């Protein structure tokens, strides 16, 4: 006897619009559910943990401004990943580009800061940081565009080198970047002219608004300009690009350099903002990797990255404060981050397929 129904996984002829918002939302909820199972299994109260996180991350005014402050760098790294994704390029090394961006920003702040006024100095720090990020992706971009070498491997491996470079400058005695007269190895704080002051008594800096504007600008660039048009042609059909005389090699180079620059810019926002110096602590924060998740959750839409960046930042801030206020391990935040990526990617399948139960056909005789 056969079952009267069978479950089939069939392709959708068209993706309904609502799914674009529905799938990321459900993946966040599913990740929270997975986290809840973990919390229960380890003996923590689910309700209490989550309400604390929500309170500390988004609902309290302190928590909300902290979240917006942190989201500045996360939106940058999200844009970095999404920009490369526009052309089906996988820049996994936003993390490393962020370190080098921070290094570049710190250099500008230390070397030029004492001689220049703030109004010139802050943009300079940001631009030098962006240039640093772009420089760090130059080799992967070059070999990818010329020889087709996988950018996934090269950008990822360069991240480890970037971490060593950053450590080198902080740990080496008498290094230009190292704070003198302190036994403990740490970075030297940049000149005051290279730093912004936080808004009111928050930990939020004006760079947040600059980055939000940048995200909207990039959204416009991709939708409306010839550059965005070219990216779309190449990503959809390289042969059509060849046919139309679009230079794919040069565009690949440009897209990857911009992607790297966006992470580098994120690193530089830490110099003009919260950190103010080269700080090896950044190696443990994983801001660059978080950008990949943020981009995936926003489905590489630059405007949506602002939302997913803030949401993500809220999770981090809420998770971090848990550690302080309760004894819940800080890793719950990081775990949720991984779970969201997993569910967001898995959820993609539902945009293209649907599950349907069909009645088995009656056998006519």
């Amino acid at each position: 006897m056969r079952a009267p129904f069978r479950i089939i996984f069939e392709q959708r002829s068209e993706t309904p619009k609502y799914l674009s918002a529905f799938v990321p939302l459900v993946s966040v909820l599913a990740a929270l559910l997975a986290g809840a199972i973990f919390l229960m299994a380890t003996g923590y109260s689910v309700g209490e943990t989550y309400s604390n996180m929500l309170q500390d991350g988004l609902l309290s005014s302190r928590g909300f401004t902290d979240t917006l402050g942190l989201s500045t760098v996360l939106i940058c790294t999200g844009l970095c990943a999404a920009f490369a994704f526009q052309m089906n390029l996988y820049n996994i090394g936003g993390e490393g580009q962020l370190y080098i961006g921070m290094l570049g920003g710190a250099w500008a702040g230390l070397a030029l800061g004492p001689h220049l006024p703030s109004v010139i100095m802050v943009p300079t720090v940001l631009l030098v940081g962006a240039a640093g990020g772009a420089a760090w992706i130059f080799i992967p971009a070059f070999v990818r565009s010329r020889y087709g070498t996988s950018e996934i491997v090269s950008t990822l491996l360069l991240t480890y080198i970037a971490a060593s470079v950053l450590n080198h400058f902080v740990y080496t005695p008498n290094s230009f970047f190292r704070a003198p007269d302190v036994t403990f190895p740490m970075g030297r704080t940049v000149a005051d002219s290279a730093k912004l002051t936080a808004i009111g008594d928050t930990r939020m800096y004006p760079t947040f608004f600059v980055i939000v504007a940048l995200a909207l600008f990039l959204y416009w660039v991709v939708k409306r300009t010839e550059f965005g048009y070219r990216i779309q042609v190449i990503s959809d059909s390289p042969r059509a690009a060849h046919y139309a005389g679009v230079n794919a090699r040069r565009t690949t180079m440009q897209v990857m350099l911009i992607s790297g620059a966006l992470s580098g810019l994120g690193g530089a926002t830490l110099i003009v903002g919260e950190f103010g110096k080269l700080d090896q602590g950044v190696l443990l924060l994983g801001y660059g990797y978080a950008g990949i998740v943020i981009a995936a959750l926003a489905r590489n839409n630059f405007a949506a990255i602002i939302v997913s960046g803030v949401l993500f930042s809220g999770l981090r801030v809420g998770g971090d404060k848990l550690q302080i206020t309760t004894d819940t391990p800080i890793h719950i935040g990081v775990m949720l981050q991984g779970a969201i990526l997993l569910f967001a990617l898995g959820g993609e399948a539902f945009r293209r397929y649907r599950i349907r139960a069909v009645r088995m056909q009656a056998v006519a005789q």
Partner: protein
Amino acid sequence: MTNTSHEVVKGPHHSGDAAPIALSAHSITKRFPGVLANDSVDFDVRAGEVHTLLGENGAGKSTLAAMLCGLYQPDSGYLLRNGQQIALSSPRAGLQHGIAMVHQHFRLVDRFTVAENVVLGSRDLPFTLHRKSIDEKVAAVAESYGLPIDPSAIVGELSVGQRQRVEIVKALYQGAEILLLDEPTAVLVPAEVEKLFENVHAMTAAGKSIVFISHKLGEVVEISDRVTVLRGGRVTGHVSGRGSTDTKELARLMVGRDINLSTQRASHATGHEVLQIRELSLTSDGVDILSNISFNVHEGEMVGIAGVAGNGQRELADTIAGLISPTTGTISIGGAMTTDRGPIAARELGLAYVPEDRLGMGLVPSMSILDNLLLTRDRHIVVDRASVRPEATRLIEQFEIKANDADHVARKLSGGNAQKVLLARELSGGRAATKLLVVCSPTRGLDVGAIETVRRLLDDARSAGQAILLISEDLDEIMSLADRILVLYRGAIVHETSGEAAQLSTVGAAMAGLKTEGAA
């Protein structure tokens, strides 16, 4: 206009009608997302006959065939094999009932010998293969149906027609009683088609049933004992009796209205030379793709390049369009050299190019009609879509493109409408007014109605004084349209003739690489 009603045209009954029905399908329905591919279709084939499934692309004939051989399962309806109900869960199940399909794209391992390919997939193979005994077995099966073939030949070295024969022998070796041939003539030159038809007769004489799938009316009339016509997933007519039907009637059943495919070769004066090719050669990885090609195309002239697929046609078109740099030789358009100057320079001199691959090369599938119009045009730094929109709307109307509006995504267009978008863009000029149009297989895969439109558009362009280079594997198309015909074989032009004087047999022989008097 004929609609969905079943229309039965009775012809004189063929003697084969007395034979028992080998396989029948009853009220088969198959639905794909958004498409009703088969709508309660009835079909049967008798032992020893050729029953043709005729229909345009998308009429549902391949879907029906796929269900007859077990590749797909029907949503409703059932199959009877010798009167017994069967359910086919896979092609292997189909084979167990003696049903096999010969696909349009062969499924052979190039590096294996003929015999190895034939026995591949057989269930009862011994652990070690004794080449000699297998060779003998395969040769015996082949010869019993009059299909001479060398079992120890390497498949990769065989011609397309021979490879098709290997596929047929493979099906017979596996015990097929019913063979489904999916568009078997699409890849063959005329002489090979003749041989295939001989083989089909040998098989039916031995009591095998053949389901022949095609949209080419002439050959359908020649080979079929019975014809079932499909349109939009439904049966629109049955015709029986070999040779007794006229193609016009079949075409009407297939399309639903009267059609006229014969274009008149205009009597017109040709003007200046627009395209000049001199001693063009292309070598890739040490292989000669094109060798020493020289010809001209004049204003108001259509030159047809005939040849079997893979003889350098695509590379020739790409080279003229500036996508490939030739190894030696020159190309000029309107007197200006375009060799090595890239596609944009060629377009600025009046080149338009309709590649064989419409979606993915000529058009970007995920982009709208409007954005696709911009592909070969000059775009400003900020793309000004608003100013192009009126033109897009006008072209959609002028070329009778079935689309909601200019924002209709290319991927969602039918093959015929995609081709019309491509022609609309290329004929309307972009960077410069179109002087030279290079078109590759412009009607391949299109339904009869669209073929009619596309040929008319090409004709109009020629009348308007544009020079046209028509590269097509469809010999009938070239014979009926081109003013001058060049045959490309292994990258060289081996035959040249005027369109009026062209003879099917001579051109066909040249396509197959046989020396002819007119050889250049």
